[in-house]
């Protein structure tokens, strides 16, 4: 089995290297063939691993090679394969494979075709290294490597000014998260003396009472500090407020990577990581409360912005932010299984929604404004139906995948007894309404109603080719059926021995108690508030955007201030731009001009130079430019020093 584990990331890497270094020689056809074969192999092998690990009940934990050994601490590259890893591997490789196939058509006319395939395969490799890791070093490697590929792909169209601004912003904001993450890893190294997951988790119970003093006079629990530092990393990667600002801008990249990286996989790395670290998070209620509150804020307030977006990709992007918030809330409520379950279902339906949006964008000749669309249903039936499935899954319509995962989250937050749980509950509940509203606002504006595009575009409207529609269909299937795995995954023992839940955190236990099979869960769901909130969101969107838009105008006129706030994204981008970007430049200039140039060079150096004016005067005179003059004076200098030493020391 070891060889298979190793073969999975390497086959993706191999394809990436071939397409990247020899893309020109291989040509387009061969480049996409090798990368797709690589990822397909990874996907098939992941299924084999899933079978071996999950169904046969095995776990694997072993090193691949030793990176370095210092002071007896092993820094290793190695794999920990358990149910969580196996699930992530299947999700990552499957979505990646779909995106690879989809790309053939989507990037068909792009001059960077081979480069694109190389990048997405490299991403798959990095993401696999991240989820398969058995230690913090490799976790950090994968963590930053996916960040690198994200950077390269957001800026894929490197001539576009907005794209190369967005990719720099994404990298820097993620680095703020990684800053906290690295400090968390450092704290683990210092107090646990190892970076190996299993070793670390083993020692957690011994270190519960350890406190550290960060600010003099304040004693903090070590575990709380570590958990919060690690969570800062998750906030960057999984785009939680206030480190979410990079994700909407990341839509500057080509749509396939928005689906793969910025919806289905990379952005869920934070959720994965916190779940992996559950033994650490579980021992700190403070940290869990922080996680829950940050998640709740993200879930609701980012959803609100989604309502006023007109760019088809940005609507989906804000929806992603909001859904990531849901997953984070679940983590805070100790409902890791629910969060991970939502991670999985979301990966399918959100990748589907993005790829469907891409399909619409192709048909619309790269027009992304939903106000210029409408009535696409009859031109693009497959895109239409798959989008409908994706949207219903997203809003949590009973029977669709998102229903099961989102309802589990809402229920467990309701059951949580931590500080902030009540606030979080209201946020996620209202968020359900908001989700349904923006999702179907977009859906109706794109596929129904008046055809608002220009005549030229209309005459060319047609369904996308098979390489696009097949992935859509392939993703639509799990967007429906994945939900029925709620039984084993959320309330069952799927994560037993992987995710640790403190018995005092009863959210999932209560969910289990009230669970009596899939159909009673659905029946119960139909009678619960989230369903009615979703339905009213959907209904309101239908009324406003298909029947009578007077209400929208009325609301717009009455609550223009609110629209402005949402349009400005709560002012966070401007704040960052002025305070952090502007502040750094101003500070840099100040330090350079006053510190380096005026104080050090101006006063001290040139001042001393004047003080030794005689010496430098002589030097200046012999600046003749002839090589032997320089050499002569240098040798003379050394001789003088030596002579002085020889005679000086005698005395």
């Amino acid at each position: 089995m070891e060889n298979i584990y190793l073969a999975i990331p390497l086959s993706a890497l191999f394809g990436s290297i071939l397409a990247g270094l020899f893309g020109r020689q291989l040509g387009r056809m061969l480049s996409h063939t090798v990368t797709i074969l690589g990822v397909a192999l990874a996907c098939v092998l992941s299924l084999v691993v899933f079978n071996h690990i999950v169904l046969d009940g095995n776990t694997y934990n072993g090193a691949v090679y030793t990176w370095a050994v210092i002071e007896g601490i092993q820094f290793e590259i190695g794999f920990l394969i358990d149910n969580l890893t196996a699930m992530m591997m299947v999700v990552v490789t499957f979505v990646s494979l779909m995106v690879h196939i989809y790309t053939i058509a989507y990037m068909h006319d792009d001059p960077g075709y081979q480069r694109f395939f190389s990048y997405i395969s490299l991403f798959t490799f990095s993401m696999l290294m991240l989820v398969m890791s058995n230690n913090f070093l490799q976790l950090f490697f994968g963590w930053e490597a996916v960040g690198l590929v994200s950077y390269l792909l957001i800026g894929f169209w490197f001539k576009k000014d907005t794209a190369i601004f967005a990719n720099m912003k994404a990298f820097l904001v993620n680095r703020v998260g990684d800053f906290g993450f690295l400090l968390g890893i450092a704290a683990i190294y210092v107090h646990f003396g190892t970076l190996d997951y299993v070793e670390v988790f083993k020692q957690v119970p011994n270190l519960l009472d350890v406190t550290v003093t960060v600010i003099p006079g304040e004693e903090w629990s070590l575990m709380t500090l570590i958990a919060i530092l690690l969570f800062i990393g998750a906030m960057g990667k999984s785009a939680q407020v206030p480190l979410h600002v990079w994700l909407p801008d990341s839509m500057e990249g080509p749509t396939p990577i928005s689906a793969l990286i910025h919806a289905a996989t990379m952005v869920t790395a934070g959720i994965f990581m916190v779940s992996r670290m559950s033994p650490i998070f579980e021992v700190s209620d403070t940290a869990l409360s922080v996680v829950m509150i940050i998640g709740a804020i993200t879930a609701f307030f980012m959803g609100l912005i989604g309502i006023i977006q007109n760019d088809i990709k940005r609507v989906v992007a804000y929806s992603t932010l909001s859904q990531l918030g849901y997953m984070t809330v679940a983590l805070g409520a100790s409902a890791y299984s629910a969060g991970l379950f939502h991670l999985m279902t979301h990966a399918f339906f959100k990748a589907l929604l993005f790829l469907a949006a891409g399909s619409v964008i192709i048909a619309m000749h790269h027009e992304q404004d939903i106000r210029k669309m409408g009535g696409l249903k009859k031109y693009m039936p497959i895109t239409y139906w798959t989008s409908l499935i994706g949207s219903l899954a997203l809003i949590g319509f009973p029977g669709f995948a998102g229903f099961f995962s989102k309802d589990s989250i809402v229920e467990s937050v309701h059951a949580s007894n931590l500080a902030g749980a009540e606030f979080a509950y209201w946020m996620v509940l209202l968020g359900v309404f908001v989700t349904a509203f923006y999702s179907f606002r977009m859906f109706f504006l794109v596929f129904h109603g008046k055809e608002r595009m220009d005549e030229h575009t209309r005459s060319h409207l047609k369904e996308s080719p098979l390489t696009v529609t097949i992935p859509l269909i392939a993703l639509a299937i799990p967007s429906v059926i994945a939900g029925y795995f709620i039984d084993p995954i959320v309330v069952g023992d799927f994560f037993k021995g992987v995710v640790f839940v403190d018995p005092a955190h009863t959210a999932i236990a209560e969910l289990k108690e009230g669970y009596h099979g899939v159909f009673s869960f659905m029946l119960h769901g139909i009678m619960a508030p989230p369903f009615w909130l979703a339905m009213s969101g959907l209904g309101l969107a239908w009324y406003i955007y298909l029947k009578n838009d007077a209400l929208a105008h009325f609301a717009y006129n009455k609550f223009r201030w609110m629209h402005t706030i949402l349009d400005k994204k709560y002012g966070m981008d401007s704040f960052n731009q002025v305070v952090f970007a502007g502040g750094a430049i101003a500070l840099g200039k100040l330090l350079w001009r006053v510190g380096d140039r005026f104080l050090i060079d101006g006063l001290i150096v040139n001042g001393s130079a004047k003080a030794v004016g005689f010496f430098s005067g002589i030097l200046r005179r012999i600046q003749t430019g002839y090589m032997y003059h320089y050499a002569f004076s240098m040798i003379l200098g050394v001789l003088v020093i030596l002579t002085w030493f020889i005679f000086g020391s005698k005395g």
Partner: protein
Amino acid sequence: MDMSLFIDWPLLSLVIWLPIIGGIVVLIVGDRHGARPAALLIAVATFLVSLPLYTLFDPLTAAMQFTENHEWIPTFNIMYYLGVDGISMPLILLNTFTTVLVVLAGWEVIKERVAQYMAAFLIMSGLVNGVFAAQDAMLFYVFFEAMLIPMFLVIGIWGGPNRVYATIKFFLYTFIGSVFMLVSLIYMYNVGADAGNASFWIQDLYKLKLGLTEQIFIFLSFLLAFGVKIPMWPVHTWLPDAHVEAPTGGSVILAAIMLKIGGYGFLRFSLPITPDASLALDWLIIVMSLVAIVYIGFIAIVQTDMKKLVAYSSIAHMGFVTLGIFLIYPIFTATNSIVGAELAMQGAMVQMISHGFISGAMFLSIGVLYDRMHSREISAYGGVANTMPIFAVFFVLFAMANTGLPGTSGFVGEFMVILASFKASFWIAFLAATTLIIGAAYTLWLVKRVIFGEIGNEKVAALKDLNKREFVIMFTLAVMVIGLGLWPQPLTDVMSVTLQHLIEQASHSKL
């Protein structure tokens, strides 16, 4: 290949004198066409001769290896004493390796005084090897000073318009720094003489009984000499000026090799000779290192000249070297144990080697652009990726290495130092880790403005991508940067025992 055949060769003398004598021959013959292949041959031969130093190195001992010992100036018991341990051996290899690349890099670019140019680099390479191999403090000092001569010449002759100012500044800084060191060395010789062992042997200096006041003065004189070299804030301002005026090869050697002599000096002299002063003044070094990381980082952000930007980035990266070297003391103060000190020191050493590759690559990349456009101003560029796609790949890779991306060598040292610094204090780790953000900010902003975007102007539109020679240089460096990032163990293992021994010396009070 069985390398044991070389075991009896005077390998260290060879790596010192082969390039020096070779350089002198090139200089005397002075043939502008023959100079290039001759220089390359000598550089490659020196590199090959240095390889057995690694393959035959015994990583299990901290004792000096490949030693050679001859009388030199018997009156003062000054010896021609050579030897390497786990600290100096990797630095010699870095030097012989870099010299090959520098000779290649100057191949077509240098059109005037070719023989002198090549000779200067060869001689410099031999002298630097001497610095790292010398086991006699006076021999060390001679190499230490002599090495500056070819560097002054390189900047003074092939440098930019403002080279005179830069050379004088460079000269004054380094001269003032090293004079105090010389005084200290002589002082210690006399202390030894009074105790009946008049010796400049560095190992003898370690054994000297020195009081705290004496140690502090000696420590400060070393700090001046090596702090200027590496350079540390606030004695760093010569470096950006020297870089800007130096030709590409000069910048590469300056950044990749010369700065390392400062770090090497701290390890070889300061810690083992003045451990008590190091403990007493550790706060000073830590503060200066953190200022380098944060303050210099912010200055790098606002630079408009590419070379200056990379020069400031070098200073910030060297902050990790001095931090890593001296962390042993705050770690001891905080935890009453020296566990973590080796990680910190390994980090400092790896950072030095890695920075040799990365800064070398960055300056070579800027050289590639400068050769074509004759401008170092960031604003003169834009959209280079459109016309130089292969170059762009390398540039982005090296930039990422410069930001410490895991998987590249730039990550390894910083990672180790940050981890170890958390042992000493949360806030030291906190400030050191800001490099993740600041370093990324100045590097990626540079990449954005130079590499990405629409083609900036007609000159950029006319750019030609890397030629074969440039490609080979870039590719070699890329392999080193990624190789060391993915697997640092071959480096850390050869240094481990030496560093442990050094930590023991450095934590052993002389009072």
